[in-house]
């Protein structure tokens, strides 16, 4: 085979192997993302997608100066992310520790804790909508526990916790699986040696287990943070942002600005701000936890 022929064959292979994937990626992800920067500076409505009028910084100004609802969505999403990430990971880790012991029902329990995760957020939201509206009041009547008699989805504060509950219930099982896999990898000799030295459970957890499973913690924090910050389906079906706009997430706010109000330009500008928010949070978080991995 000549050198020229070989180059041709290499070129053909590159095209056949990488070409299709690259083409779809460019068309569906890269092109819209790049176009988004342009559309952020235009007045563009959903009725005529071909016409976008350049308006400079009008959208950005409007978002920063006049759009309280967007910033309230931003605050809600930030608060929701912090709270649900902490609770989800604490619960998932506790469940993993529990199932890492030699209990008989561990396989069945693992399946049950994971089960909510396979059903999509939209369906789960509606299932829980029923539970908050009808199920809880029935439990309240029967047990007399006042907590169940609240109008859960009716006040901003309880609606917030309602979403947190469903999110934790849905996500904890998935993170638990990752934590279990990491715990299995912790060598038994280490904890046995520590036990002989008289270390307490808590000391062993802090001194041995947690440092050794830091990579799993990084992954779980990353996954839960990005899921919580982008939450959409669950928000739409469970509270639809209500009562009022009290539980409207950023993703839902963008969706409504564009598809309900038909302001695509403004929606795109918000979506780009959203992107920078997501990118900043993800990068900071990965850097922070990665650094701890190296230190310990």
């Amino acid at each position, binding site marked *: 085979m000549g050198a020229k022929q070989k180059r041709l064959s290499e070129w053909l292979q*590159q095209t*056949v192997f*990488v070409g*299709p*994937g690259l083409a*779809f*990626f460019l*068309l*569906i*992800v*890269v*092109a*819209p*993302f790049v*176009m*988004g920067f342009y*559309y952020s500076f235009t007045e563009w409505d959903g009725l005529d*997608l071909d016409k976008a009028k350049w308006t400079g910084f009008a959208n950005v100004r409007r978002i920063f100066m006049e759009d309280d609802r967007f910033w309230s969505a931003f605050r809600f999403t930030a608060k929701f992310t912090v709270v649900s990430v902490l609770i989800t990971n604490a619960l998932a880790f506790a*469940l993993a520790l*529990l*199932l890492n*012991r030699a*209990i008989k*029902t561990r396989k069945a*329990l*693992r399946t049950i804790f*994971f*089960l909510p995760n*396979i*059903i*999509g*957020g*939209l*369906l789960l939201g*509606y*299932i*829980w909508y*029923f*539970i908050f509206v*009808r199920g809880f*009041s*029935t439990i309240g009547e029967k047990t007399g526990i006042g907590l169940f008699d609240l109008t859960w989805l009716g006040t901003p504060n309880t609606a917030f916790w309602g979403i947190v509950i469903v999110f934790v219930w849905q996500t904890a*099982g998935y993170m638990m*699986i*990752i934590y279990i896999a990491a715990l299995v990898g912790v060598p038994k000799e280490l904890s046995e040696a520590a036990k002989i030295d008289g270390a307490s459970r808590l000391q062993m957890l802090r001194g041995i287990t947690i440092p050794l499973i830091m990579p*799993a913690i990084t992954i779980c924090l990353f*996954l839960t943070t990005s899921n919580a910050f*982008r939450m959409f*389906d669950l928000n*739409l*079906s469970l509270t639809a942002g209500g009562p009022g706009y009290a539980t409207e997430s950023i*993703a839902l706010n963008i*969706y409504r600005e564009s598809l309900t109000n038909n302001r*695509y330009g403004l*929606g*795109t500008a918000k*979506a780009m701000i*959203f*992107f920078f928010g*997501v990118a900043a949070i993800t990068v900071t978080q990965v850097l922070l936890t990665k650094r701890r991995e190296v230190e310990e």
Partner: protein
Amino acid sequence: MRRERSYSFGLLTSEALGIALAVIFLVPFYFLLVNSFKTLKEILLDAAKLPEQFGLDNFRRAWNAIDFPVVFMHSFTITVLSVAGLVIISSMAAYRFVRRPTLFNRMLFSAFIAAMIIPFQSVMLPLMRITSLFELRGHLYGIVVCYFGFGISLSMFLYHGFIKSVPREVEEAAVVDGCSPYGVFWRIVFPLLKPITATVIILNVLWIWNDYLLPVLVVNNTYTTIPIAIQKFFGQYTRKWDLAMAALTLSALPIIVFFFSLQKYIVEGITSGSVKG
């Protein structure tokens, strides 16, 4: 001796705690299931008790109300085609990236990975423009192409990590025997990728089957999927709990069956899918 006893007591406590937590986790499914069989009056009277009779009337009406066979087939077709295509294009690209790590390919790979940070909302509106420009909107192939684009980053990333551990020697032997580069990949390498292919299939099925927003934007009225049908249903009848619960049970059933038939692979798949990250 005493140590042994206190240890097994500790285990028993853990066991009891685990079971108690599992019961709490299952409560929502209990509510869903029992209320699917009840009449509306029974539900309003007492949502927690068992139904008086297990008739299938609610299911029959829900089946028709959301046009279940049709929306099921739509969800099924979209999921199968998208996942099959993703397996093919992402494994091929990952293979090339591992075996020919030129500067261009390494940069390309980083670009694919970096794109995972982009939230869907940040591309969805310009994507509407693209899908109408390229006549993807409203067509089955249109939504499938969209899933190729959004799914390739993660799938390729998983394949990339796995292919790195596949020894080159087998391939070299095949080349000596006169196998073409494409034959080497499909006949020798691809069969070796089975474990990670299972992971890629599972993660993508769970995502695409449950996805709501992308189908709404691309094939809302032509290829109504199960989540879209449920969303429309709740927009129409808010308080018809009997019908709603049966519709939700019906809609959750296929993915639950999928989960229980592939449970072992799913747990392994998630573990390997995340540890590679």
